[in-house]
């Protein structure tokens, strides 16, 4: 999924799949991420970055 916006205070990011489906994702394990980064998400947690 692609990071759309980051809520640093809460350690969450709004991420969108390639087709527009959006969900809130925990990003503590891959920080720092910035909007535009792609991440692999499992059970609501970004497990690894996939580069921009």
């Amino acid at each position: 999924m692609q990071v759309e916006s980051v809520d640093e205070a809460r350690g969450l990011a709004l991420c969108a799949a390639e087709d527009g489906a959006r969900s809130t994702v925990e990003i503590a394990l891959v920080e720092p991420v910035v909007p535009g980064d792609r991440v692999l998400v499992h059970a609501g947690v970004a497990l690894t970055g996939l580069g921009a």
Partner: protein
Amino acid sequence: MRYVDEFRDPELGRVLATEILAAVEPGRHYKFMEVCGGHTHSIYKYGVDDLLPANVELVHGPGCPVCVIPMGRVDDGIALARRPEVIFTCFGDMMRVPGSEGSLLDAKAEGADIRMVYSPLDALRIAKSNPDREVVFFAIGFETTAPSTALTLKRARAEGVKNFSCMCSHVTIVPPLRALLDSPDLRLDGFVGPGHVSTVVGARPFEFIPADYGKPIVVAGFEPLDILQAIRMILAQLAEGRCEVENQYARVVPYEGNPRALEVMAEVFELRPHFEWRGLGFISQSGLKLAEAYADLDAELRFEVPGVRVADPKACQCGEVLKGVIKPWECKVFGTACTPERPIGTCMVSSEGACAAYYNFGRFAREREVV
């Protein structure tokens, strides 16, 4: 979708299938285990096994985290769910797994407040919006989902959410593999290693498989081309007499895993001395529980759970099926006491498990083999 579509290109699939056909020794039968339930699902979804030569057989491994949860744990979960103050939350695929007297889905029909969540964070959200209820999250899964549970528990602690707790049934991937490999009657030639688990633990923990047991393993991604490529890599190792850990999924899996995830897990969880696996029995140091520091969030301590062990029916031979020693139809209870509607062992619980697949599609699979 472009990123994903590259790995679903049927043209490249045919090229790989041809290469695999060229790489197999005629007359030799290959058995490879795909460890992860996610691989099993992709293989099914895309019909990957249909593209393999008849003498390359894929054996579905123990890596379906819901299917390996033993009956006793399901019963404990149902007991918690039945408490009037409890909202019991779990992943959707856990709902149908049978305990000794029905599944969570049945308990829901009888009035228990059971809700399906997509992530532990959803469960925490339910807790925050229902402050007068106790919300229990039934945590299951390998190292892929364990970090998610760990982070949620840390978040619950940090945000001071008092009505949230976790029934931890997380498991780890290496011990069951070692248990399988330890059995003298194992008939496997190599392993397709788990992809998502490896994003957390890395590829290093699998080094014992070639080193101690002389079997090749290739960590693979979940797209159909990933799986075909991993199979070709295993075949190449066998043909060249190599035996090592290779990483087909390097675009996602760092060899060392995700150290931060491992750190969080180490902080929140500790190993149980042993954990029971449906169909495989007790395996030591294979399950996780909440660490001392998080004991106040442990549902098994907060509430009384029966904790009764329900033995797998003696006749169930899932272990042998997983090891590739017997075929599903050779099991004593297959098709009689154990059916997809009333499953006993892990191989029948999952719709993609070896036994369920054989029960549903056996005749069709046979016809394909003859063609």
